[in-house]
């Protein structure tokens, strides 16, 4: 039935006229929709057509037809927002109309289209060409259907490389979502989709190739459940021009100076001014060269306000390092330029280390959104220091398979050799037991998965907390058994620092040379002077047996279309809804110890503590294991 409606709508859309309000058959069809799963909004159709012209200009045409069923739906989708670059693009509302259940249809008025400055750039004049256009649906009330058609078109080509990221998930129950990308054959694209199995229809015609992706009948994703979850974990289409890894990295770096040109006197003078300012304001006479590098890095990372601007909209142009430094704010790309300028001026020979998620030699998963890290490698006192200037590498040291180094000309120069003993392993056996059982079974997760380490580094350093974080969206799970390994760095004692400005709290706790384990309140104890490196024998991974019990209050939904009725876990699942209940963990017993670890005398007490009703009455039993001795 739904498919039939969609097809009827598709046909009707072709005939729909833009401009004034018109009661189209598609709107009337939308007015009859209900949600099978209690969604706030049913999205009957979402179409996005991206057309790249021969000259490189891009036209994006978006059309959506929805029915809003709840107050939350009105709040979330009654005033859609389109972001664009007011200097480089034209944004046009072709259709914005509402059909109410009483039959009244209301079109758009000029005062219902408002261009505002996004909060993210409201204190960063250089980036304020990026704007948000808010479209207020008039005549809207619960139960009404709306239709929106918007075009955003480049005035002139400005993209160094064509790429995009299109979510195939939605917080609305979606009947049909279509994304089509049409490019000239000489600028053909590669693509991949995460979290879903989607294959495009491909059509060649008149020197262009068109990829048409579609998904149908997807449930609403609860946005409150996926906050902070990497888009890589949700069903998302990534597409990018076929240019190769090095070229992609080069183009993404844009004009950011990644090293000082010795012959450029102006650049050298600018570098002198930045270094002089840093030395005057921050440096201590007792600082070693290594401390100076880390101190300046911290100043650039945190002392300059970080602007999160969508470079795909804003373009790749960067300010000169001195200009950006003096302004007091910069986006990560500009911070990269400032950092390299300083390091080069101090004689530390900075280089860019690029880490990609994709397999070596394969273009299959090459995408800007798939760049896991852009690191700065500097040589300090004969050793490498790795600095995350872009703040993209939130998960600790580089560890993807394809990591390479660009020299100052942007050429691939060398491969990166991973420290041998840096690893993490997570084995979980999970039993599902739901109060509203829509799925049950068992699940085993294995392997060195990025998100888990990421969560540790992101301020959840307790493995048990990581487990609960991972499972958080899945209420009513009982983890029967789990084992963990520790993280460790090998004898090279590489310094990894992360996230300038994006997460201020993180840098505070990620100290130079810190081993990224241990409870948050113990970060301070893991300083290099306390004895790095700590060797950990892989064979003696710590193992703990834990039982995780998440309180009632949420549901686990699974998609009927999933083969073998596999339930995806936590943030990996499109089809879940969550409880925001806190989690609790109790330690049943500890199996083995890590060499060098001091037997925590409190362990037995801890077990008693957890089984004590008084303790349980305090509700939040987060176990913090004293993992390693200093």
């Amino acid at each position, binding site marked *: 039935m739904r498919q039939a409606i969609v097809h009827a709508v598709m046909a009707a859309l072709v005939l729909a006229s833009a401009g004034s309000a018109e009661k189209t058959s598609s709107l009337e069809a939308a007015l009859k929709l209900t949600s099978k799963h209690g969604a706030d909004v049913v999205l009957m159709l979402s179409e996005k057509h991206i057309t790249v012209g021969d000259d490189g200009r891009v036209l994006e045409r978006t059309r959506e037809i929805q029915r809003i069923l709840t107050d939350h739906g009105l709040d979330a989708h009654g005033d859609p927002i389109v972001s664009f670059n007011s200097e480089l693009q034209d944004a046009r509302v072709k259709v914005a109309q509402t059909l109410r259940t009483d039959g009244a249809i209301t079109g758009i008025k000029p*005062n219902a289209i408002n261009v505002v400055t996004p909060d993210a750039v409201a204190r960063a004049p250089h980036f304020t060409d990026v704007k948000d256009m808010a479209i207020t649906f008039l005549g809207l009330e619960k139960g009404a259907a709306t239709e929106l058609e918007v075009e955003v078109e480049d005035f002139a080509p400005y993209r160094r490389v064509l790429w995009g990221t299109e979510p195939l998930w939605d917080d609305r129950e979606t009947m049909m979502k279509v994304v089509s990308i049409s490019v000239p054959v000489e600028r053909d694209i590669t693509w991949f989709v995460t979290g879903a199995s989607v294959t495009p229809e491909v059509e060649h015609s008149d020197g262009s190739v068109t990829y048409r992706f579609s998904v149908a009948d997807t449930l609403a994703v609860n946005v409150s459940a996926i906050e902070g979850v990497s888009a890589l974990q949700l069903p998302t289409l990534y597409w990018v021009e076929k240019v190769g890894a090095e070229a992609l990295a080069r183009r993404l770096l844009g004009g950011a100076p990644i090293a000082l040109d010795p012959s450029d006197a102006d650049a050298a003078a600018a570098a002198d001014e930045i270094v002089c300012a840093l030395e005057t304001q921050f440096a201590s006479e007792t600082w070693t060269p290594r401390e100076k590098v880390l101190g300046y890095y911290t100043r650039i990372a945190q002392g300059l306000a970080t602007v999160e601007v969508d470079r795909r909209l804003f373009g790749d142009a960067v300010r000169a390092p001195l200009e950006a430094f003096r302004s007091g704010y910069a986006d990560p790309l500009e911070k990269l330029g400032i950092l390299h300028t300083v390091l080069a001026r101090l004689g530390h020979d900075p280089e860019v280390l690029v880490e990609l998620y994709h397999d070596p030699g394969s273009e299959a998963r090459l995408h800007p959104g798939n760049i896991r890290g852009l690191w700065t490698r500097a040589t300090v006192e004969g050793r490498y220091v790795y600095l995350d200037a872009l703040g993209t590498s939130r998960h600790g040291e580089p560890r993807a398979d394809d990591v390479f180094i660009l020299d100052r000309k942007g050429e691939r120069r060398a491969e990166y050799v991973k420290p041998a003993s840096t690893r993490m392993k997570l084995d979980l056996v999970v039993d599902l037991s739901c109060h509203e059982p829509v799925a049950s079974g068992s699940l085993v997760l294995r392997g060195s998965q990025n998100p888990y380490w990421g969560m540790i580094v992101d301020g959840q350093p307790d493995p048990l907390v990581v487990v609960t974080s991972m499972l958080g969206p899945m209420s009513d799970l009982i983890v029967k058994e789990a084992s963990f390994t520790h993280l460790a760095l090998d004898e090279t004692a590489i310094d990894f620092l992360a996230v300038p400005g994006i997460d201020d709290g993180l840098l505070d706790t990620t100290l130079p040379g810190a081993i990224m384990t241990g409870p948050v309140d113990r970060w301070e104890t893991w300083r290099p002077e306390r004895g790095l490196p700590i060797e950990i024998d892989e064979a003696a991974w710590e193992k703990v047996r834990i039982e995780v019990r998440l309180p009632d209050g*949420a549901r686990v939904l699974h998609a009927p279309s999933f083969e073998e009725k596999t339930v995806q876990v936590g943030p990996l699942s499109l089809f879940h809804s969550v409880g925001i209940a806190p989690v609790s963990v109790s330690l049943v017993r500890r199996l083995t110890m890590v060499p060098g670890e001091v037997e925590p005398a409190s362990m037995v007490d801890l077990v008693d503590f957890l089984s004590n009703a008084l303790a349980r009455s305090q509700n939040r039993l987060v176990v913090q294991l004293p993992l390693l001795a200093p």
Partner: protein
Amino acid sequence: MRRAITFLAIGLLALIADARQGRAEPEPLKEQQIIAMLASAGGADDHPLCHTLTVHHHTDVTVEDSGLGHVVDRKVVKVLDTVGATTLSVLRFDYDPASQMQEIRWVRIVKKDGTAIEVDTDKARDLPQPAHIIRWGARMKLIEVPGLAPGDAVAWETYSKGFQIAYLTDKDDEAKYIPPMEGHFYDVVLFEDVVPIEERIYSLHVPRDKPVHAKVYNGEVASEVRADLDHMHYEWIKRRVAARPDEKRQPDRSDFVTKVVLATVQKWSEKSVWFFEVNEPVFAANPAIEANVKQIISGKKTDAEKVEALQRWVAHNIRYSGISMGEGEGYTIHPGIMTYEDRCGVCKDIAGMLVTMLRVAGYTAYPAMTMAGARVEDVAADQFNHCVVAWRQADGSFVMLDPTWAPYDMQNWSLAEGEQNYVVGSPEGEDLAATPKFTAEENRFVLNGKSKVTLDGSMKGAVEIRATGYPDTRLRRAFAYAPNGEGKALMHMLVSRISPFLRVTSYKATDHADLDKPFVQKFSYEDARYATASDHRLSFVIPLAHFILDVERMSPYYLLGDWTKRKNPAMFWFPQEVQVTETVAIPAGYRPESLPPPKNHDSGWVAYRFEITEKGSSLVYSGTWSVKSRLAPEEAFADLTRLSGALDEVKTTEIVLVSSEEVKP
């Protein structure tokens, strides 16, 4: 809060004289003066934890006969640390192009060594302001102040005239800045900031025939008045003012920082008549509205029923989303016909829709200005941020209605709007009035439980949650405005406060959208390991002794943090009472080893009583506590600390049951 407070914005007037029109401006601020100020001002050591220091802030205002104000604003701010440097690296000046002009005259950096650097004001960017729910076309000017370091200072001067909030007209350029209440001027000037201030000066020059009525509140400000042939000259000065940082859930800053409120309007009734007259044309209806009103009140018998039906329709069908209608936006109400077609607006438009519909139904109704979340002082200066409806009764009195706050509220006037000042806009002119003080008993959470503990330590129980007054609204909105299903998830989470191992076995709730019936939720639960069981002994906490209402929106008095460290008053919006009762069936042959003595306390700010008694083979827990005021000033903090402590103690009090066998010798 989903319904954001609307800034009705009768606008902050600010003005100044134009030197080219013969008006004297204050003497230019010389570089040496700035350097001298900086030399005598303190540094980072004198202001620990502060990032910047306002060394000098002078606002000079000259008012014309028309009420048009000219404002020269000068500020000298010292950078105390790197955070301060970042903060001041971009200056932002907001204005509304529809009714206000804004000019950045000069910006100057004064380096630590005294070197002055002019910032090119031509590089300022004129941009739309960020906006979310209210999109009225407000703009801002951004200017970069590059290269700042600790010890440096930034000084600037701006000139503006007009209102900060819209007043569009087809008049010539100058006339569009004249205030809507022509010939009058008002201002509310705060003399404390989130950063320390060395010197704050506010100068005002008004025509001699416009005497200013002014008062100082919440502290002391030095003042001076003098006159010449044409003008009255007022000046208020305060020096060496400590920083007053914001704190969570505080009332509007104007409620507790030192301020001067001033106005040329002498009586509220003048403001009332003006507000009536300026808005009266907008309440016309059309046949569609008339037909809808007829349908809405069909079958309703009494006036109260009809008015309530109309208010609920407006509350649930005119969504909160502000778009500008152009002329008059900000202080005049959108025409009822426009709002009916748009189905959206801010508080004034939603109120206007109800006035329109009430009038169609034959009632006399007017819009009223009010201030949600802060006092309105008795000087007749506009101090309003919200708009409501006054329904006139046969005896001339008013019944107040607030459709903006009415969604999912059983009341026609929200019980979160007690002790709130308002001025009705009527043809006769009304004085400043206030809504009544609501009591804790009117805003009550009620939790009833029945449970049973068994020898193996398991606990099975049932909880019923209901509420009256604003707590009832809070519970309903948790369902209405969260993603579908999240309301239930929230309630599950709260019940899970009983035990992290609690397992909900059933849940039922009435319809949260049915405002004619109480919203009642019922849970059944079990926990196989709730009590600690050992030979002849069972120990546990009474399930509902745990703090179930563990969300700040429901229990700010408990969850805001340490009251002993707080400086600013706290705004709870409504006084409240919580009543908890639970009967716990205990195993036969077991009795409590001892029971805690009852806890009682009653003061001007809080009251509580907790008691556990033995009744046959059951324990009966009874806990009642109340916070008696919607606003907690500093003198209430000790009592709130005491209440928090009592709640903490109750929720950790273990009951130990002992079998009769053990007590045998």
